[in-house]
């Protein structure tokens, strides 16, 4: 007897959002990237479309990341002392579909770079790579409200992914993105109600929904991954039922969260049973990413090239429809 597969009929789908702009579109990128557009729960190919595969953004800082684990610092070596060289290496041999550039040096305690210096860094990165670029502030609102508008203006038309717009601080960044034709990241703290509310506040300013990427916040493996999974799942179910204020592609800082874990960092000398630290850290990052792919994450912000290679293989497998 043939088995009849029960299928959900979904009325909504995730908005498609395109990042970057080519010369014809007013930018200088060699290619653009489109994410979103899904019309089913993650990977249920028999119920709906997954027109765009999840992509990997490699995290690049505008200062040398002294505090990062040696296993990650060993990957690009001295290139990490220069954001443009780092970004170029990440695209050429690190599997980066796009670059996630954090302007940490604007932080008064980490270099106090001026908005002009930050603009120069972004310009150098744009010149070094052809992929779309996300530009994130240092996390201090007063500083970011000077830096991000300056970057937005200097790179008008590039369709950068600018962040972070939060409930406490979204006006300036969203306005800059609107005026200079960029996309914004709307970040909320692992709270689906605040996530939806922030999207409403941002769209009320007049920015179209296809210019917003949601960062719902995530936790790494062993450190709240389940909460991130639940929020992602709930948002996707709501989106499929027609909730437009949640139906936006998502981004998550996988590398940042995974490499914070004790399990990714302590050496085998301390816990011999845990095995080689570098390999363990890479797997910690890869498993965090793979788990969140199951909750529908569209852009994975990652660090280690070997973890990225594992995740890309996983994505390729997931994108192949099963025989159902």
């Amino acid at each position: 007897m043939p088995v009849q597969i029960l299928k959900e009929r979904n009325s909504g789908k995730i908005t498609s959002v395109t990042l970057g702009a080519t010369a014809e579109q007013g930018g200088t990128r060699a290619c653009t990237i489109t994410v979103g557009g899904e019309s089913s729960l993650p990977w249920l190919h028999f119920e709906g479309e997954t027109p765009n595969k999840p992509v990997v953004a490699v995290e690049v800082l505008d200062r040398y990341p002294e505090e990062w684990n040696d296993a990650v610092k060993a990957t690009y070596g001295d290139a990490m002392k220069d954001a443009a060289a780092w970004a170029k290496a990440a695209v050429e041999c690190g599997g980066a579909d796009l670059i996630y550039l954090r302007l940490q040096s604007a932080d008064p305690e980490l270099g106090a770079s001026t908005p002009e210096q930050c603009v120069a860094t972004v310009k150098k990165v744009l010149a070094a790579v052809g992929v779309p670029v996300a530009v994130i502030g240092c996390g201090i609102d007063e500083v970011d409200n000077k830096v991000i508008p300056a970057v937005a203006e200097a790179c008008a038309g590039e369709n950068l992914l600018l962040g972070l717009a939060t409930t406490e601080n979204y006006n300036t960044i969203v306005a800059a993105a609107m005026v200079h034709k960029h996309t914004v990241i709307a970040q909320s703290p692992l709270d689906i109600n605040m996530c939806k509310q922030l999207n409403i506040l941002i769209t009320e300013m007049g920015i179209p929904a296809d210019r917003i990427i949601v960062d719902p916040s995530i936790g790494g493996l062993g450190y709240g991954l389940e909460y991130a999974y639940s929020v992602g799942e709930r948002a996707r179910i709501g989106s499929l039922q027609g909730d437009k204020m949640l139906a936006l592609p998502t981004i998550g800082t996988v590398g940042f969260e995974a490499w914070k874990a004790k399990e990714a960092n302590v050496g085998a000398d301390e816990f011999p049973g845990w095995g080689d630290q570098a390999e363990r850290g890479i797997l910690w990052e890869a498993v965090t990413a793979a788990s969140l792919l199951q909750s529908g994450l569209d852009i994975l912000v990652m660090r280690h090239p070997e973890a990225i290679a594992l995740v890309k293989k996983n994505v390729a497998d997931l994108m192949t429809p099963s025989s159902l």
Partner: protein
Amino acid sequence: MEIIGERINGMFKDIREAIKTLDKKPVQDWAIKQTENGATWLDVCVGPAAEDPTAAMKWLVETVQEVVDTPLSLDSTNYDLIEEGLKLCKRPALINSCHADRYKIERVFPMAVKYNAKVIALAMSEESGIPKTADARVGLAMELVAAADEFGLPLQDLYIDPLILPVNVAQDHAIEAMETLRQVKMLSDPPPKTTVGLSNVSQRCNNRKLLNRTMIAMLMASGLDSAIADANDDDLMETAAAARIIMNKEIYCDSFVELYKTNHYK
């Protein structure tokens, strides 16, 4: 929750006068006001007093469509008049309404399919009148569901009305209507949509708005998808928004009331 704004009706004095003098302003004012407050549909009814009801219906449809693109609910017992209105509607309309009598179904359902319209179908017939029990109402509702299938009317375009009577004269009816909603939703897969003439519950009662908004919350919990109601009763609209949140139809956010009002007429 689809609210079918009830205000453009010749039973109201200002609309009756407007139809008589061809004064567009009161009609258009109500079209805009109801739409802005979250009406999904606008009911248009010429009422009993119009000299030429067909001309009045055509005038109402055109007058409303000049100012809003909210879809219309054409309210009449005269199906030829409704058909004239349907020809003018720019967006798929709602036919308000059809009884469960075979000859009426045969006139209305094919017309709905032809004009891509939806139908409010009442769980009553000439023979039964308004049935007392939920069982009798469900029986008629299921005949309407079967007829929709027969005539090719998609079930999501069929709005079953279990019928609401004023609570001061027919106090035992409301609970039967709720049970009817529950069973209609359970017995058909996919289920049809449901609607009621909400304000009926409070005719000639004191505290009308309180009765209306309490009723809508209770009916929603029983399976109500839409209601012909006063879209400019803010308390009512806010109750509907809150009920959607409590029933987990919508993910909570602080702006849930505003979101409900802006989302539902687009």
